[in-house]
């Protein structure tokens, strides 16, 4: 167990905070929203991030990575949560890179990972087919042909799907219904013939897309992992994503909480600072207890990715469920405690609130993870 950051990780945290606060503050997300940015993120910013090594933070050195591990990544995600910075960090550098790292053939790793690390290639995961997270409910088909496969189906809520260079698509190559058996993962270029991408505008001003695959041909080298055994890749990839996202939610919750506590010390009503009212003090103190518990959960979940992957499923579900609840609590209280100004677009609290709701749905809401945790505990 590693529940305290080491010096190197703390240094990374300082650097990341400084960089994001100056180069990608919340106003940058607001500008992307107001200008209806094509990509949904600032490519120049992403290039700066890759120069800092962020795109390769979890990759081993042999593929051009920094090999900083998931605790290092967690630090970046948390700081990005504080500023709501939009970038392909999650979709490509965490989810996409993990999929190749865990399931890719040696030649896939050698060609794709250094490109991801250098910021020359971005990936996106096409998984969901309904409005809820059901990772094994896959109807998209991959039929075997002479020298490859033909993919047909439709994906929804594909994060960064309209801007990624390549799509990692979860398909069913055998069987049907809601079972892990028969799932296969394929890499499909977004520009491939038969791929139709419809960008959706989501509450958090980030990118998601609905994508349909109409007789899309790929060759057999597009397969990631073993045919029919894609779940062995997908499940740990999703868990890594859940943990990384939980770290981002930790940043969102902390930032919102700190801004709210500062407001309680500044705002006067009824002739007193509102932070002196016990009703508000107790609610703020309760949030502090939840933040402390969440902090331990996050650190343990992040460190398990590298130190004890056998515990990852349980800890990833613990982290996602607890952080979903935390970020909901804190963003709601932040709006309420800011009073009237809390519901204006002018105040940034609303942007945190919206990002929180999207993050809560990605890779499983609280109910999904409570069910999974209970099942893993044998009840």
């Amino acid at each position, binding site marked *: *167990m590693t529940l305290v950051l080491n010096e190197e990780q703390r240094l990374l945290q300082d650097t990341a905070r400084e960089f994001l606060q100056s180069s990608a503050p919340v106003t940058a997300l607001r500008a992307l929203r107001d200008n209806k940015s094509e990509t949904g993120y600032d490519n120049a910013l992403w290039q700066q991030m890759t120069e800092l090594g962020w795109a390769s933070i979890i990759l081993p050195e042999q593929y051009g990575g920094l090999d900083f591990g998931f605790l290092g990544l967690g630090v970046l995600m948390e700081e990005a949560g504080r500023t709501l910075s939009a970038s392909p960090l999650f979709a490509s550098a965490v989810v996409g890179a993990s999929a190749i790292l865990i399931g890719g053939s040696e030649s896939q790793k050698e060609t794709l990972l250094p490109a991801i690390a250098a910021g020359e290639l971005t990936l996106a995961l096409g998984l969901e087919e309904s409005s809820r997270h059901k990772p094994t409910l896959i109807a998209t088909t991959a039929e075997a042909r002479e020298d490859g496969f033909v993919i047909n189906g439709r994906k929804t809520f594909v994060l960064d799907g309209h801007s990624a260079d390549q799509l990692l698509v979860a398909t069913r190559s055998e069987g049907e219904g809601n079972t892990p058996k028969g799932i296969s993962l394929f890499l499909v270029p977004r520009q491939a013939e038969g791929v139709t991408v419809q960008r959706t505008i989501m509450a958090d001003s980030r990118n998601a897309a609905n994508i349909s695959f109409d007789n899309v041909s790929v060759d057999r080298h597009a397969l990631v992992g073993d045919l029919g055994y894609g779940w062995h890749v997908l499940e740990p990839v999703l868990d890594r994503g859940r943990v990384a996202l939980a770290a981002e939610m930790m940043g969102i919750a902390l930032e919102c909480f700190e801004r709210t506590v500062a407001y309680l010390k500044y705002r006067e009503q009824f002739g*007193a600072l509102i932070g002196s009212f016990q009703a508000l*003090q107790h609610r703020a103190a309760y949030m*502090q*207890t939840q933040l402390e518990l969440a*902090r331990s959960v996050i650190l343990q979940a992040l460190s398990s990715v590298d130190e004890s992957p056998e515990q990852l499923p349980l800890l990833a579900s613990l982290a996602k469920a*607890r952080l979903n609840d935390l970020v909901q609590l804190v963003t709601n209280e932040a709006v309420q405690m800011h009073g009237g100004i809390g519901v204006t677009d002018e105040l940034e609290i609303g942007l945190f609130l919206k990002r929180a709701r999207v993050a809560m749905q990605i890779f499983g809401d609280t109910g999904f993870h409570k069910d999974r945790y209970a099942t893993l505990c044998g*009840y």
Partner: protein
Amino acid sequence: MSAAERSNNVQDLEQFRLEVRDWLQDNCPESQRQPITPEEQYYGGRDSSFPSDDARIWFERMRDKGWICPEWPSEYGGGGLSPQQGKVIKEEMKAIRARAPLYGHGIWMLGPAMLEFGNEAQKQEHIRDILNGTIRWAQGYSEPGSGSDLASLQCKAEDKGDYYLVNGSKTWTTSADKADRIFCLVRTDPDAKKQEGISFLLIDMDDPGISTTPIELISGESEFCQTFFDDVKVPKKNLVGELNKGWSVAKALLVHERKLMSELGSDSPREIVVPNQAARQYLDFEDGKISDHELRSKLVEYDMEMHAIGLTHFRTFEEKIAGVRSAAPLIMKYAGTEAEKQKSELLLAIMGSQGLGWEGEGFNRAELDTLRLWAMSYAMTIAGGTSEVQLNLIAKNVLELPQG
């Protein structure tokens, strides 16, 4: 610390762990590796006797080894070990479910406070007696009417030259009817501001003028008492810390108490039933899942809460070693005792009417204990500062919110 030194330390600790494991294997009697009942807890004291021969042997071996309180300095009879080593002993004891050889406010609270605030003579006089189990201590903070507002206490000690003259009463004096001595907060300067005129006194329960009566609780138990002081003469050497500066001793002591209470879930005496196991015994399963959705949901929420609290306990320890300060220790009393209450409610819900027996036929021991523990769990979020007081403290000390 360099990486090499750290790995050396880890190696040393692993070596130490193996030694502890062997020693415990050889020295902890089999009967002392079972869940303990309240009647089997050994508190020591002048009139004490051991609940069994094995309990005596186990206590004596641990005492001679210096492991009653392994982290206390060896010159007063402690083990003189590091916090890491102390933790290893705790973990290895837990692994074989070894019972604590000695219970009581002496080792939990007075000892640590005295090591911090006591003078040399006091440490020489009292610490060894605590570790040898020859003196049993009670605590006297709260007063009728003062509740969690501890600083409003009225029990007074007047300076009479050679001694202090104590008059007043204390309530919630845990086990005062069985204790040899009591440590008390008393008012020594009635004119000073609330916290500033309080002192910390040690008083012998055999002194003339002291009387004590038990208080019956909703659990049917009466481990708490009310204690009265009527012209009790206390020698001046029994003042711990400075005159009128008892509040700082009290605060340190409360930190120990809250830490202890937040950890209760991990080794409470009647730890026979845990919700996860009770569910298997009392609930229906369908396809490997508890079929009652409401109870399944409550159980998983409780398990997640305990998981998070357990990790936070571990984090506070790691932070202490690394010299990192955080707010984690300050939230633990609130989170830990609220979770204990949550657990009791959950167990009653899981057991249904089988969990509601008060005594007699038709209920097994674990079921009866569960109900009594449920009734006791209410005291957890009240004693040692209510949950509301804990939230006030977090608001004030962590968040630094304006005080009204």
